[in-house]
């Protein structure tokens, strides 16, 4: 019963995250999803992952989002998407129905066919049995860090700067204008740049962009 409530809560949070028009609100709803999910995971017996989900999913990721939103700025979002809503709804629901038809309900014939609970404890499974996964994951993290460093690094000035964006006709702010928190965190070569954490930008997104121009 409690699990039903939890799942309902998770889904509500997720829906709210999608419906939210402000990014920060969406990120917070996501954190809510994560928190509830952590409880559900705990109930399913996944104690360790529940903790990780709580700390990484609800904690770190939310921080990252807040940070990113701070840098990029809130943006007034168009309420209606590019797709007709009925089409999107249909496309989201159709595979769902088919999947549900195929895999629900879990019953004892298709599943649980005589499995015995593993005896190894969690750290044994993670670090030894699935050790290769962890190794590859380290490479993945390394690649991800390098990628983020690369993406946030400055690029040489050239003819491409300050040009008009083809799509919007918005004058693109140049690099120097937009130096900000994340850049300082992730790009070591400009670490000693004076930081200006744009905390107040969150409240006034348009103003943040204006400032960036100046």
């Amino acid at each position, binding site marked *: 019963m409690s699990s039903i409530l939890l799942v309902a809560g998770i889904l509500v949070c997720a829906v709210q995250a999608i419906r939210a028009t402000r990014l920060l609100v969406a990120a917070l709803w996501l954190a809510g999803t994560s928190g509830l999910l952590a409880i559900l995971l705990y109930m399913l017996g996944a104690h360790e992952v529940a903790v990780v989900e709580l700390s990484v999913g609800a904690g770190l990721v939310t921080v990252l989002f807040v940070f990113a939103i701070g840098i990029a700025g809130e943006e007034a979002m168009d309420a209606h*998407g*590019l*797709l007709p809503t009925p*089409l*999107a709804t249909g*496309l989201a629901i159709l*595979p769902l129905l*088919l*999947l549900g038809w195929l895999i629900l309900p879990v019953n004892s014939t298709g599943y649980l066919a005589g499995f015995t609970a593993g005896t190894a404890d969690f750290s044994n499974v993670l670090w030894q049995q699935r050790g290769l996964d962890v190794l590859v994951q380290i490479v993945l993290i390394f690649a991800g860090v390098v990628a983020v460093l690369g993406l946030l690094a400055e690029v040489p000035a050239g003819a491409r700067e300050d040009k008009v964006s083809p799509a919007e006709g918005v004058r693109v702010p140049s690099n120097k204008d937009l130096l900000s928190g994340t850049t300082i965190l992730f790009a070591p070569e400009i670490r000693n740049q004076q930081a200006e954490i744009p905390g107040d930008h969150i409240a006034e997104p348009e103003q943040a962009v204006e400032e960036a121009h100046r």
Partner: protein
Amino acid sequence: MPSIDLTTILTLLTVGFLWIGAVAVLWAGDGRRQMQNLLAAGFAVAAGLAALGLLPLATGQAVVRIAMGSFFGDFTFVPDGLGVFLAAVATVVGSLAVIFSIDYMHEEAQLGRYYALVLFFIGAMAGLVLAGNLLLLFLFWEMVAFCSYALISFHNDDPKAVAGGIKALVITQLGGLGLLAGVLTAYATLGNYQVEYFLANAHTVPPAALAVIAFGFLIAAAAKSAQVPFHTWLPDAMEAPTPVSALIHAATMVNAGVYLLARFYPAFADVPGWRTAVMTVGVLSALLAAGLALMATDLKRVLAYSTISQLGYMVYAVGVGAIFASQFHLLSHAVFKALLFLGAGAVIHLVGTRDMQQMGGLGRQMPFVRNVFVIGALALAGIPILNGFWSKELILEAGFAGGPFAAYVIMLAVAGLTALYTFRTVWLVFFGPPGADSPSRERNPAAGDAPPAMRVALGTLVLGTFVTWLLAGPFGNLLEIGIKGPAFGHVSSTLRVVEEVLAAPTTLIALIVVSLGLAVWYWRAKLPANATASGAAGFRAWFARDGGFEGLNHAIAGLIQGSSEALRTTQTGQLNWNIVGIAGGLAIVLAILALGA
């Protein structure tokens, strides 16, 4: 066995000389034109000599065998009579075209690319006819198509040339699908690619599969030999430099289709409906193209249509089972059509236009070219003594004896039409009153006759026009080598051919029809004006649309382009729409699995 060894060497050299020459010409670089001329002509002539040397050595045995691994079989070359003969035609006529090019192309840029492609082209054709493996045959078939494309669009700054090249490539490749299907079916049913094995075991192939192979090959041959309904590429291929046109029409490309039909005739003759289909294709092509030739005003287009028409004769001959007559006409046609094209090339080179209405009265200015062109035209029209006469008579005779009467009558009428358009062409170019704005005199008041290298090529071909028919006997014997089965017609001596032709009543009828064609042209002014006008109008209207085939081409091309353009809207570039693909794809696959399993 030294003779076998020599055969092997010559077989390899026939193709090898040309391909080595192609590389050598490229290697020489466009900076050294004289060197390129020399290399190209040298290697082409060497290959021609090798092929001629191969003629007495023809054998039905595979002389080269290279194992290619599973699914590809052994690549073999079999220099049997038919193959050696066509290789000789390709290389000898080809080398004359190369020699002709020395003068014709002397002002062109990118000579290296030109010669390399020409040599590669001739080499691929020689390989095609000598190949003893179906896959190897297909390989060469495709190479020929590619080279023809590259040469047709040699003047690639000209959009018409590019379009003509791509049209030729796509249409012949579409036909090539028939060959592909045929070869694959043959391999799937017999497990072997060897031509010899296929011919020997065709009767064991299930009838349905054999029909696929037979009609597949027919489609391929029709596309390659520019037969109805695939003929539309050939006139557009006239954008090529004239020596290349001569190559395509006389030496290489279009002969491949007729070769294919002749080669596999023994296997397919008994497939129900196949011979009828072959005859129909031949008759329709001959008739339609003759009519088109009568309407055309572009000198090279007239020649192109006449090629389609003459190939129609050859295909028709295969259909009635007269392989010898078909191949004999191929030989005659190769010689006189090369002559006509190179002659036309000399004219165009001089005048700077291909429009016959702007020519006229050129005969006095270039007597040598006039004389050789007229000889070629007479051969085309089928005037006695010249080689075209003998071979065409043989075909008509065989058609009378072995084919339906209606087809024979049409082919007879086409013979008259051929005479008619031939004389019209000769008249317009060399004798008629100069065109209203004839540029010939103003532009080239001192323009002489053909330069020396051109004369060498033209002279050789004129000689050929007079003498090749004398080789009928040896030729008949040659064709027998390595070929099993009675289909090839037992011609053993020239004398018998002569007797047969002269004795047959069809010859007389044909001659009468030909002279009728001549007469129509001669007295064209005296015919009742109304009759010509009204008759010509309907005629013209139908032929102007090329019997609708050109429109069909456009419709198909338009459809493909249109659907391409329509499909491009699916790539919206919007991330959300991209996700639609994922969600939709998932739904569809799930549905298929859920419902289907």
